[in-house]
């Protein structure tokens, strides 16, 4: 990085530290296999960075879909939060504005060693979580071959204290398909929900997690 007298303060002379793997706890959470180079060739605005082509590494693609008001964005926040707490690179994308007016809403969550685009391409979702049965077909084309569909029918026979917690219950189902420890999910719920709603949602999460066969059908996305 070139040095110069002015301006007197710089905003980013600490580039290698953006490498998310450096923030993993020493006790060895997921080995995300990121190299310092991957951080350097990131879009991190550093003057004159030159580096090699990116390493292709496994990225997990999740799409959460439903209707405005169902908590699509909250569900994707929780999933992204869990991946973030695991020390992974995370991107979460959505389009809102009209989302409170009952229209279709979808949110993409991608995580892994290094994520570029914030959007999940058609046919590349490892997991599609749909909150409204009517939105399954609209979004099915997003699923990768062999991808996992999670939908409200999976909770059949289970009673939620509030139907508003359906989003979190289905995140509980989803949690069985990812290798994050349960404590990390609890932490993600805690940081994304108002204290007065926490207990209800922890319960819903547990119901969903319980409803899904541990290590159940479908491939575990690698990351």
């Amino acid at each position, binding site marked *: 990085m070139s040095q110069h007298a002015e301006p007197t303060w710089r905003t980013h002379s600490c580039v290698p530290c953006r490498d998310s793997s450096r923030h993993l706890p020493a006790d060895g959470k997921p080995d995300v296999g990121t190299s310092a180079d991957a951080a350097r060739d990131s*879009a991190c605005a*550093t003057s004159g*960075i030159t580096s090699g*082509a990116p390493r292709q590494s496994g990225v997990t693609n999740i799409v959460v879909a439903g209707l405005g008001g169902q908590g699509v964005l909250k569900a994707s926040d929780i999933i992204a939060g869990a991946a973030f707490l695991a020390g992974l690179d995370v*991107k*979460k*994308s959505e389009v809102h504005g009209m989302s*409170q007016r*009952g229209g279709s809403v979808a949110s993409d969550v991608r995580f892994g060693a290094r994520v570029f685009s914030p*959007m999940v391409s058609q046919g590349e979702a490892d997991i599609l979580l749909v909150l409204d049965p009517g939105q399954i077909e609209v979004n099915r084309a997003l699923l990768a071959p062999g991808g996992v569909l999670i939908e409200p029918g999976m909770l059949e026979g289970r009673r939620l204290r509030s139907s508003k917690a359906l989003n979190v219950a289905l995140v509980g189902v989803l949690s069985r398909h990812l290798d994050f420890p349960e404590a990390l999910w609890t932490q993600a719920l805690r940081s994304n929900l108002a204290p007065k709603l926490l207990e209800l949602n922890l319960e819903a999460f547990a119901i969903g997690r319980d409803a899904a066969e541990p290590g159940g059908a479908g491939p575990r996305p690698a990351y």
Partner: protein
Amino acid sequence: MEMPNQCPERRLLLSGDEAVALAALDAGMQLGTGYPGTPSTEILEAFAALGGLAQWAPNEKVALEVAIGVAFAGGRALATMKHVGLNVAADPLFTAAYTGVTGALVIVSADDPGMASSQNEQDNRRYAVAAGVPMFEPADSQEAYDFTLRSIEVSERWGLPVLLRITTRVCHSKSVVATPGYPAPPPRVPAFERDIAARVMIPAYARPAHRRLRRKLAEIARWNEAEGPTVVVEGDAALGVIAAGVCYQHVREALPDAGVFKPGMTYPLPVERMREFAARVGRCLVVEEGDPYLADAARASGIRVEAAPEAFRFGELNVARVRRMAARDESPEPQPPAGKPPELCPSCPHRAVFTALRNLDCIVAGDIGCYSLGVLPPFEAIDTLVCMGAAIGVGLGMRHALPPEQARRVVSVIGDSTFVHSGITGLVEMIYNPPPTGHVVLILDNGTTAMTGMQEHPGTGRTLDHHHTGKFVFEEVARAMGIRRVHVTDPTLEPAGFEALIKACLDSGELELIIARRDCLLAAGAIRRYEKANEPAR
């Protein structure tokens, strides 16, 4: 100042909007001001939540003028708006480039390629060129943070307003932000320093000011070439790509072997570095959303680049579309199945209004807000929608031109926040140039800026953070303006009576203003809470 090579103190998962707000806070921005508009709205909300001083202005022009005042006084100011908001603020923008600023002035333009929530997909990179203001384009939340600080740095170094151009996918995507926690030098203590020749743009002072601006831009161009935030990814010699903003992310994923040139400051562009890059690759493709801005700039400088086919000018890009661009695949693109469109909430007070307008077969000049949804079935009761505030002028124009039997059916419908934004001058026009058949204006006052997510506005009498302040009362202002027939009513109480009122107004041939007042259902609980909290303690 030597910066220790320390690891960041904070690692956060933030949206682009939140990252801009955090940087504004870290840099000690004195004031953030703007008008709500998707996808920019969350910046000021986040800035306020973090403890910054944030205000909603009546519209973007006023916001920018207030921000210019802060920066004239030596402070650091942030003005936020969506892309069409910069049209409203364009007048001060162009001349603020001449005057320059004493402190820092960062203007956020949040563009919406693909129109997730907008009436057009204009490309505001053109504004940077037209006004002559430096522009940064972040590609993710980390850069949204970094480039906000960079914008302040450049603004203070050259005394110019700086445009931070972000797009929907950057504003509303969350990604990891590691902030080094470097303390920025504190902003100077605002104090008035008289500089008439710099700030009073009469022609005699504006002529040298224009020359000064061009000199500054030439210097900034040299700075950007030498040490601007450009990323060059070495790759395949056969294919190189020029891309900025979120397009860079799609390119890295779609074309992992390609070399990539990513300018962080996209005006003035690092043209010579672009030239070197393009010369090193066999094929140099420009990937950009919207207008061929980078491609035109490159070609105008004699750099051989390949612009994307016209089909990719429309809508957002994504990884799949970038793959198609690279493959020169112009076959029809697969369209995702249509989802469920948004609609007015069940029991929304606007429903009563549009039912009445449809029953009366009105010709409706509409405006921007939730009530734009009145255009969809089952109402289909909006006939025009152009821009914020246009309902009144467009309605008046139709009244002037249409034969009387049709003119008498014309109604202008505008929301409360939109009325404050730019409907007031429309009312002035109505009083000044009344159509022979009179006119009927309906203000749909639901007590909030609903569409963008329940923001306050001057008509609510509460500030951005919901504290009591001066209240702009529509009916009092209208009467003071000289409109004698002002009706205030709740359209949901008695729908038949409401319809009869509109009918009587249409028939009167006078200038009529109906204020249909009923709180938005989604906001009503919060409004009650704010009002209760604002009650004076006994």
